[in-house]
């Protein structure tokens, strides 16, 4: 049947990458969307060079939000905090490799919303 879900989405939904929690994450991020019940929990550990060394996620939700979170964990590897802060919605949508209609953007961007909240908390904790 015709499906707008790309192979990438189907694959990441069926086989989520980096599922679970980290022993000592530096950044912990959550986004709950009560309107659809999507939940994303993201954990990031930074290496000694200040770059992302490890990412993990857990969550519950629709295919797009879960595939997006799984893709997220791969694409964040090696990035600096400044890169994370500069991450745009269009980049995240691009990773899904399928046109995301306007009424599903919220699902796709759920991990980005989580990340932004997590970064804000991280900055506050770091005193700036």
């Amino acid at each position: 049947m015709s499906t707008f879900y790309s192979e990438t989405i189907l694959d990441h939904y069926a086989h989520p990458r980096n599922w679970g929690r980290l022993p000592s994450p530096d950044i912990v991020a959550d986004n709950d969307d009560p309107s659809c019940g999507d939940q994303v929990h993201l954990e990031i550990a930074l290496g000694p060079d200040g770059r992302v060394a490890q990412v993990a996620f857990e969550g519950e939700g629709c295919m797009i939000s879960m595939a997006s979170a799984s893709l997220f964990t791969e694409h964040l590897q090696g990035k600096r905090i400044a890169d994370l802060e500069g991450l745009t919605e269009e980049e995240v949508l691009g990773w899904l490799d399928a046109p995301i209609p306007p009424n599903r953007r919220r699902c796709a961007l759920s991990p980005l919303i989580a990340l932004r909240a997590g970064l804000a908390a991280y900055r506050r904790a770091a005193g700036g």
Partner: protein
Amino acid sequence: MDTARIRADFPALSCTVHSHPLVFLDSAASSQKPLPVLEAMERVYREYYANVHRGIYAFSEEATLAYENARDRVASFINARGREEIVFTRNTTEAINLVAYTWGRANIRPGDRILLTEMEHHSNIVPWQLLAQEKGAQLVYLPITDDGFLRMDLLDSLLDGQVKLVAVTMMSNVLGTINPVREIVQKAHGAGAVVLVDAAQAVPHMPVDVQDPDCDFLAFSGHKMCGPTGIGVLYGKEALLEAMPPFLGGGDMIRKVEWESATWNRLPWKFEAGTPAFVEGIGLGAAVDYLSGIGMEAIAAHERGLTAYAMERLSVLPGLSVIGPPAHQRGGVVAFTFRGIHPHDIAHMLDMEGIAVRAGHHCAQPLHRRLGLTATVRASFYLYNTAEEVDRLAQTLERVGETLGR
């Protein structure tokens, strides 16, 4: 009922969506509009448009007459005693808020209770939460059974003399349950409580008589019953409406205005401040005529048949579970979960095949939580839906299950 002829009255139903003929199964959210409604509204704008209740000239008189005439037809559609009892609002939500802000503020005191049910729509919960917070009153919920019926066995004990208002839906927009409103009204009145009936899902789909059950207030929306958006109805007993303070202040709702104070217009205009949505009111009048012409009994029977057929077709799909009562005890909504696939994904796949259903919590988060769910898919039926459309839903769902099911 001649469904083919009815369908020809609804231009939107012959649209194509993603290269498929549209199957519209979301009328519980808002219905499509038939030509007589579209034409009635266009005629106002083209032929006699002018503000109502004001002008001493032909257009204004004609518009006023058409608007008030629509009110009279709405009154007789639900068997109200007269136009004094029909207040036009924007929708069900505004009608309920009107009661909460006026009757509620005047009558609810600290320690009073407001009895709701676990299957209410947010619009019949949140206005009461605001009122209860303001007044120090308490909300109490009549529980439901796991299969979606009200726990009527608990009603007597909850109606404890502290309850001043019972606000209950006539039909659940998620479970489809048709509630025993007559018994609730009798018991509530016996306990000295006023009853507001949320009839948003009832008035469009079945005969409703505000005098039986003997409702004090009843609310519904034009857009769910073939009428336009922006127009809804609050029915209220004249004596109650008469005693209530006004809702919004402004033009139209006053009799006389001085620098420091004003006196109020007669019912129902006391509750209609400012230029009303009179074109929409006239559209609602046309919708009421259209539905009456077909007959509410016939519409209800058609929906019962479709619902029973849908329940039969869907329940054989492995991993599909319908929430709510059996077919013969529900109206035309069927909400379900399917093989652990998120409702948004299901709705999206169906949309790609031209089938419009609703996915989410359908403005009933507490109810979904009660059922241990965050979201469901809901198909809902109206006078223009057909058994072939149910077949397309079932066949497409089967393929969705094969593609996305785990």
